[in-house]
């Protein structure tokens, strides 16, 4: 966003906050389901504990229309460049949630095949613990990300 010059006065600060409010209220996740966490991500999106309360129930397949990438599952060495390519093709502003232990740190598979933590490939904003994290913990991660965005807007980043 064109960064208004000078300290955040009333006009530009409230614009920042308004834009941040608009962005957090309907972040569309890019469906990057890899392994077991993808099943829990789909369960979060389904009717029982649905994501549409946060305006996020529509999982955009193509990165062009998505502004949040939930890396749900273990990232193998063969998949890392693909993950990086999809991340690069997402439009700004974009955020990344690393869902589950395998995405965040390689989890229980400390071996040749997995990237030990997806932050070696893409910048991650929120790490959701769990293996797989339940729908409630994923939603908690999403709410934390929304707080993060609003806090960043308040501080005029």
């Amino acid at each position, binding site marked *: 966003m064109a960064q208004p010059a000078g300290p955040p006065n009333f006009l530009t600060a409230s614009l920042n906050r308004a834009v941040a409010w608009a962005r957090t209220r309907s972040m569309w996740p890019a469906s990057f389901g890899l392994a077991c966490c993808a099943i829990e991500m789909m369960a979060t999106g389904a009717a029982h504990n649905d994501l549409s309360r946060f305006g996020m129930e529509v999982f955009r397949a193509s990165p062009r229309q998505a502004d949040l990438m939930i890396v749900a599952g273990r990232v193998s*060495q*063969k998949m890392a460049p693909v993950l990086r390519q999809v991340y690069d093709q997402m439009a700004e502003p974009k955020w990344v949630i690393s869902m589950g232990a395998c995405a965040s740190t*390689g989890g229980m598979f*400390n*071996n*040749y*095949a997995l990237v*030990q933590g997806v932050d070696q490939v893409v910048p991650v904003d929120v790490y959701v613990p769990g293996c797989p994290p339940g729908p409630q913990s994923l939603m908690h991660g999403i709410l934390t990300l929304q707080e993060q965005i609003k806090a960043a807007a308040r501080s005029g980043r």
Partner: protein
Amino acid sequence: MTRVETVAASMEGAVVADSLGQTVVRVPRESLVTAVTAARDAGFTMFIDLCAVDYLTRDPRFEVVVGLLSLDPPERIRLLVGVPGDDASVPSITGVFAGADFYEREAFDLFGIDFAGHPDLTRILLPDDWQGHPLRKDTPVGSVPVQFKEANRAT
């Protein structure tokens, strides 16, 4: 004489054994294709599994294990083929069972066993530029050392 004995009898050098209740036929490497064809004609028509094992210090170092299944009287057979470590090559059975294609590519990818006669023997699970064959016993697990202890103190 059960079907397994007829299958074994039709190949010289085949030895039938019993491993915890399951019939196992050890087959010399050269007559693997004839053994699989004989098994299929004897009724083991469904190809179930092909995998490799690395015994590291045993004389034929590698072992290719072919699992077949017959449906009407439900019965399983397991063919074991010893493969020496230096020239790890086995005749491919994709001619007999088309389903062995991916299994042989996986055995090649993770163990480095060459399957002579396979239509396109390339890596299947790892990217092409991967050095080495990870499931061999002399390859380390490849784990990143986890620095719990040496993590820098909060200065």
